[in-house]
């Protein structure tokens, strides 16, 4: 969709410089796109199972001719594709919203949980549980059970975000150059510590790790969604309440405060929310990159930087794009599948470079 066509849709009916009508129009389109993506995700796959027929049969109670085949198709649709589509929606939305919130918080379009090390911190937490869960960290796994991994991922991400914020912020001003460089350094440190853990890992743990580090939605099961879904949903539900504050923050922390925004509380809420959502996402699907940076950027071009619209639109577009990427991952080498992190990186990295080139001279590093 070109910017002009959207502009035309919005500009005719409202005052100059007001992009809210256009934003609402785009959000309506994105709802449609998400519905289509979910449909595509449910209907595509390595097998020829027809989601439409399975769901219709379940609803009407029709007795299929081939019972064995019907049972297989039911399993494929209800236990493989559905949890996977739902997980894709949750994680795509979480990653995109977290990207938009981080960018608003750091006042920079390049901030991204993956880029500045939040994901690396989450990974470190998760890997620690995988590798040390039966030895040094046994009390943690005993106490929290299946929640230990998402919790560790959450605290890993939180620690990195807080550290980064403390390092990059001096007298209320967040230095972008310091933030990016510190993010790279902290990422490297987290990855090095992860490396130490991998070194200590045995074969079985290594297998879990490699599968998980590449980033994939393949582990989607209903119990898993039951564990991390609420965390992601809660964190996401809190985000839109930040939108007003994040808008004010675009004018600087001091001005946001003068406008009546409790800036410190806003920052803490954003950091905790992002860490929770990223931590939970990383815990189930590993590191899936570039969604958080590409999605909000595209949307700012289309509807402007107003977070009241940007955050919900990011959630919708992030979910749609991740479902599409996953559909590609599931079908391109069928019956095998690619890790989705590879698909998003291949599509996202060149796009990210394009942003940098386009912005050269405008982005103040």
């Amino acid at each position, binding site marked *: 969709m070109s910017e002009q066509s959207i502009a035309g849709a919005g500009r005719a009916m409202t005052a100059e410089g007001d992009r809210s009508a256009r934003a609402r129009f785009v959000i309506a389109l994105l709802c449609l796109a998400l519905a289509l993506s979910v449909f595509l995700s449910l209907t595509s796959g390595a097998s020829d199972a027809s989601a439409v027929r399975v769901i219709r049969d379940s609803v009407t109670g029709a007795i299929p001719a081939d019972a064995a*085949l019907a049972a297989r198709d039911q399993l494929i649709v209800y236990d493989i594709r559905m949890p996977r589509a739902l997980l894709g929606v949750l994680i795509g939305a979480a990653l995109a919203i977290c990207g938009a919130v981080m960018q608003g918080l750091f006042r920079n379009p390049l901030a991204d949980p993956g880029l500045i090390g939040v994901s690396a911190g989450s990974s470190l937490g998760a890997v620690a549980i995988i590798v040390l869960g039966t030895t040094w960290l046994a009390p943690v796994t005993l106490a929290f059970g299946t929640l230990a991994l998402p919790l560790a991922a959450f605290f890993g991400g939180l620690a990195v975000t807080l550290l980064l914020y403390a390092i990059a912020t001096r007298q209320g001003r967040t230095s972008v150059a310091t933030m990016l460089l510190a993010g790279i350094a902290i990422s490297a440190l987290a990855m090095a510590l992860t490396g130490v853990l991998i070194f200590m890992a045995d*074969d079985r743990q290594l*297998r879990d790790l490699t599968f998980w580090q590449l980033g994939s939605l393949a582990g989607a099961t209903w119990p898993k969604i039951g564990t991390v879904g609420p965390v992601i949903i809660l964190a996401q539900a809190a985000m839109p309440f930040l939108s007003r504050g994040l808008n004010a923050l675009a004018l600087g922390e001091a001005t946001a405060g003068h406008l009546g925004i409790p800036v410190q509380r806003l920052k803490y809420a954003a950091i905790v929310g992002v860490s929770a959502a990223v931590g939970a996402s990383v815990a189930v699907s590993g590191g899936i990159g570039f969604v958080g940076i590409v999605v909000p950027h595209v949307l700012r071009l289309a509807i402007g930087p107003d977070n009241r619209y940007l955050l919900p639109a990011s959630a919708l577009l992030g979910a749609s794009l991740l479902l599409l990427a996953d559909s590609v991952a599931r079908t391109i080498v069928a*019956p095998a599948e690619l890790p989705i992190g590879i698909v998003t990186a291949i599509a996202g990295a060149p796009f990210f470079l394009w942003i940098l080139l386009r912005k050269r001279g405008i982005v103040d590093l």
Partner: protein
Amino acid sequence: MRFALNFRAALAPMLGVLLAVATQTAKAGEGTVVFSDSSRIASIGGSITEIVYALGEEGRLVARDSTSTYPEAAAKLPDVGYMRALSPEGVLSVNPTGILALQGSGPKEAVDVLKKSSVPFIEVPDHFNHKGILEKIRIVGKALGVEAKAERLAAETDAKLTSAEKQTASIKDRKRVLFVLSTQGGKILAAGSDTAADGIIKLAGAVNAIEGFSGYKGMTDEAIVSAKPDVILTMKGGGPPISEEELFANPAVASTPAGTNRKMIGMWGGYLLGFGPRTAEAIHDLAVSLYGNQVTD
């Protein structure tokens, strides 16, 4: 598609590590040991596929995993991906009537979903010794309903293995062998106990130079020196081969007896570590490489 191949190539170095998994528990599936309909079988694990071919039952195969590269004809079957990174829908998409999977197939979530499906799933245990191979053959044969054939293949394999083991029985001076999985980043990843490499080294009448840890671990220089290997064993076919120059350029490796005599053996990964019908030949080949004409026929 080209990208997909590259990706597999990138995974290959890890493949070796993952091929050889310590086995604690042996269980042939849960409940199912015989497929009620064995007309369409998905075979996961290189040695399983080899056994199916050795039984002459390859007509039943409808899919294989990416570690099933022998015999060459198997490569023509649809590939459901690496055995540790299966996609449940991918496996089900070939409409199998049964799934034969080597122990260690994963990820756990995928296997759980497959077990939930109406398609019978038989997990074949993987032990890195003489008995383990025969057990695999019998389990596969039973699953396919060709127990008599499997018994014949097992007896034949048993005889071959016994004779291969005997070839080195009279050798007094046992060689110390260090299996090096990879040298990535200058770090030497070697095989400890409970690995396929450890199993084949023992069967070939040699001694694993590593003691004290199980699985594959990175080695410090000092540990390499004190392991005193006479021979370095490596595998081919799992990513870029380990170069002799690079390996012996490592001062720790160079200072060992293997380094002084520049003694390195490279064998095909699936052949060396597969623990299937060809293992007797692999034992023989390795023994000949180690002991030359000391091997008695």
